[in-house]
């Protein structure tokens, strides 16, 4: 039933919330920073070892995703913040990934 509510209800406005959730401590930030540095070092290391593309590319991909997530979730505190921010961002991210993957597939960019 889609009868519209005619009974007055209370104000919809959510109670004022802090603009951001709890933030990690500076120490935790530094720890994340160290992890990021290590991951980057690993990435760079792949440049010096001779592995086949079949292993190299997924490895690099995983490392990059890890770094990406660390920055987004901690430094940009999406992990602690309101879910709705994450939803917007993921819309853009997933949208971009899907659309451009389709375009690249149409070009046969991964078949060669």
């Amino acid at each position, binding site marked *: 039933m889609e009868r519209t509510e005619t009974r007055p209800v209370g104000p919809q*406005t959510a109670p004022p919330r802090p603009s951001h959730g709890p933030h990690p401590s500076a120490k935790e930030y530094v720890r994340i920073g160290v992890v990021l540095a290590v991951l980057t070092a690993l990435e760079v290391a792949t440049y010096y070892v001779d592995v086949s593309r079949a292993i190299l590319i997924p490895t690099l991909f995983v490392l990059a995703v890890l770094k990406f997530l660390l920055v987004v979730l901690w430094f940009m505190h999406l992990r602690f913040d309101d879910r709705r921010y994450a939803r917007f961002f993921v819309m853009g991210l997933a949208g971009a990934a899907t659309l451009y993957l389709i375009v690249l597939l*149409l070009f046969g960019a991964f078949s060669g």
Partner: protein
Amino acid sequence: MASVSVPRTAAGILRRPTATTGVWSWFTTVDHKKIGIMYGVAAFAFFLIGGLEALLIRAQLAGPELSVVNADQYNQLFTMHGVTMIFLFVMPMAAAFFNYLIPLQIGARDVAFPRLNAFSFWVFLLGGLFLYSSWFLGGAPNGGWFGYAPNSTTDPSVGMSFYALGLLITGIASAASAVNLAVTVINMRAPGMSLFRVPIFTWMGLVVQFLLVFSLPIITVALFQLLFDRRWDTAFFDPTRGGDPILWQHMFWLFGHPEVYILILPAFGIISEILPVFSRKPLFGYQFVVFSGIAIGFIGFGVWAHHMYAAGLGPVANTAFGISTAIIAVPTGVKIFNWMATMYGGDLRFRSPMLYVVGAIMMFVIGGLSGVMHSVVPSDYQQTDTYFIVAHFHYVIFGGGVFAFFAGLVFWWPKVFGRMLSERLAKIQFWIMLVGFNLTFGPMHVLGMQGMIRRSFTYPEALGLTFWNQMATVGSYLIAVAVLVFIANVVITQRKPKGLDDEDPWDARSLEWTTSSPPPEHNFDEIPTVHALDEFWHRKYVEDERGRVVRVPAGAAPDHDPARGGGSGHAIHLPSPSFWPLVAAIGLPVMGYGVLYSWWVLALGALVTVVGLYGWALEPSVAEEA
């Protein structure tokens, strides 16, 4: 009134503007209503210019092998016609409605970022003027509104550089205003207005802003690539260096198709808003209509290659995109049928807005059906790039969009200007326009199927296309007459004394009608509390136990403030006027000329914009009181 008095000097150089009336106030205003009006006026002016270009096109095509204009001029005309109508008329006209109405419909005092709003408008206007300055600086864009590379990158005239730069500039305007309006709808609703009490027009506005946020960056990159190919000889679309022109097509239509829903969803919103008023029934299946709007927006991102069926993407792609395209008919059909159900059993009062709305639905369906015929890929091989396509999109954009805009104009005119447009003239205009419109674009279906390609400045007599072309030309001049009737109507109306006999002339349903006409600068003396969808209607009427409607006795309605806009609202601090948005905007076209002519000009433009932005950032949004 905003109680702003002697201003603090901003950045110590320029005095803060304070005037809220007079010519200068229009340059510095941050009031969404004034900005909305400016958007509307500018967009309408561009409509006249784009229409004038169309009239020249039709004059040239009135017979075989005429030479009203030559090939070169013709190519500039249709390109500028398309670009103008899409980017400088329909999009900003939608922005005009959104700007004016969204804050009023959700019970807000302004948009989320009033100065950003002013910035958006100025950037759009200056971007449009920048584009038009090309006529005097070596030739207007001439590669078609979708500027296919490498024709657009190799054309020796300067036109397509103006195209890229001009659209980049207006794109900045749209992006800024999209973020602004999206945040406004999400965040600035009056107490009690849950998402499913948001008026349907505002809902469609929200969907449009999201489409813009996600599609504009794509065209931005494409335009930069086009510009760099032209200006700095990069190789993005240059086949001689391995570049692929098809990349441009994907990028353009990845934006371009969502764009067509950006053009039509505002119209759907207007239709859904007005139809119930004159049917005296609520919108049938409000939630379904909302969801179908979202679905259209979403699916709209997955159909772009239907503009490229003949490009040789192969049968897999053509199958996939053919099917996804046809699927759009489903959510669109939901809207149409829900509108019909709204009318069904209603008490249809054919006042002028209703005429336009019903006309819009009927004309849009014709265009929608030819759209579905395009999705039938093998027949589209015959139709693509012919006048059949031209017919399709004018039926949807003009038939659906522009008719709906006129509906919106006559409907909200009293709200915005405090004067009723003449019903008689509005109706006369409608009938002339309806006949002229069908006479113009109906024959184009036939022309296309009989082999008339689009973007053709001439056609030989032997093709046998003369008769229908003549009809189309006659029709287009009829449309011009209709537009003149509208202009006359406006002029006559503005001469009448201000004031409405009835503050609620249409027996309307949504929140913007709870305030005075025109609304005070602060919109509402008191921010309304919302109890229902169609809040205003529910303040006027209740349904009794047997589902019958009875009018609420005057004065008995909860929250209903009979003294509208009665000059209270003192201590309401509205954002103060500012000229920094204008300054920041002026830098952009200057940068545009810089790209074409000299690094120094480019740097100067950048400097102006940066200064504008600093002035803006350093100035408090509300001037302090002395």
